[in-house]
């Protein structure tokens, strides 16, 4: 880049270049040198006016060029997108769980007997299973507190817990979650 072109560039810095000179400058074959010189003078101006050193400044020009050339996508904030997809992944299982809990709670309050309640509760839970990515062949695992009991003890304990939770949900109106938990434990989940 010769001095005449650099002088044009300097005049452009000061908004004093005419259209023809600008056109000549932009048609120069080595635009990388034009850009470098322009950038250095802009950095000096930044230093003079705001005290910014080049290291404190910003240079996104290469990224913008790459984005516009299609070499990379415009900036995508992965963190926010990641959060959004994670939220979407959990939305339907959460809705299903809340729906089950409410159904069981209101059903129990309406006077189901324990067997009907168990059947009613197990159906929606089973319906929600595909949303939790559970394989149908997975063997049910008993609640930890119920492990080690023989069959008769386990039946008695389940019945006791079920009735206890049912009373809670009827009496307080806030026991649906506990009730659902016992029902699911009783079903081995």
């Amino acid at each position: 880049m010769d001095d005449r072109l650099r002088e044009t560039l300097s005049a452009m810095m000061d908004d004093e270049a005419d259209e023809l000179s600008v056109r000549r400058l932009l048609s120069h074959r080595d635009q990388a040198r034009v850009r470098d010189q322009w950038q250095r003078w802009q950095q000096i101006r930044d230093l003079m006016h705001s005290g910014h050193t080049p290291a404190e400044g910003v240079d996104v020009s290469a990224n913008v060029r790459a984005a516009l050339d299609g070499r990379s996508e415009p900036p995508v904030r992965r963190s926010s997108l990641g959060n959004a997809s994670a939220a979407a992944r959990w939305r339907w299982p959460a809705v299903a769980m809340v729906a089950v809990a409410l159904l069981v709670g209101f059903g129990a309050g309406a006077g189901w007997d324990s067997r009907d309640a168990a059947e009613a509760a197990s159906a929606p839970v089973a319906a929600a299973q595909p949303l939790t990515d559970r394989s149908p062949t997975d063997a049910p695992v008993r609640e930890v507190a119920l492990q080690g009991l023989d069959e008769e003890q386990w039946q008695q304990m389940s019945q006791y817990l079920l009735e206890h939770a049912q009373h809670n949900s009827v009496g307080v109106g806030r026991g649906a979650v506990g009730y659902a938990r016992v029902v699911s434990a009783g079903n081995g989940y």
Partner: protein
Amino acid sequence: MTQANLATADQLARTSGKTGKPSMTPEQNQTQGEHSDSQTDLQLVRKVRNGDRAAFDLLVVKYQTRVASIISRYVYDSQEVMDLTQETFVKAYRAIDRFRGDSAFYTWLYRIAVNTAKNFLESRGRRPQASADVSDAENFDDGIRLRDPASPERLLQREQLQEELSRAIAELPEELRSAFLLREYDGLSYEDIAKILECPIGTVRSRIFRARDAVDRHLGPLINHTETT
């Protein structure tokens, strides 16, 4: 050169030789913000519309620090500021046909930057804390707003560069220094500088270029060094 004009130029030269930066009134500060009615910007925008990517490159280099400063009023994470600055320019490029030239290019760019930052915050469920008016675009002082890491090493580099800048300006021949300072710190047009210095406009243009080139050569190694650290 008249006595009064000599006094003005000498006063500027003396001040800059001592500190590298004379104090400026708000009016002076605004006049050096050359972006209010930039003919160069409009020329470059016309080139961009005709598909000249190099012209857009020059606009990016010219305004990227200011755009980042605007965005940093809303977003505090430096990486997010960089991403949003990039996004602002990509949006501006894609919407360049909608720039009608009713306002200065920088004002238009400023609006895009503010909207990009606000949209980002809303997408993250955050309410924008800062507010900005388009009228702020002309008076926006990026020197105040850009977040400063202010590490001891960075402060030392800044101090060294400022000292070298003062030295480089002080070492300029008087006629170059006067023209350069009247342009950079007083924001005067070449025509006004020519009147003050009583010389042709072409001479002013040449002097300012030579002054800028000399300062660049003086600071060059230091600037390259700070860019890599």
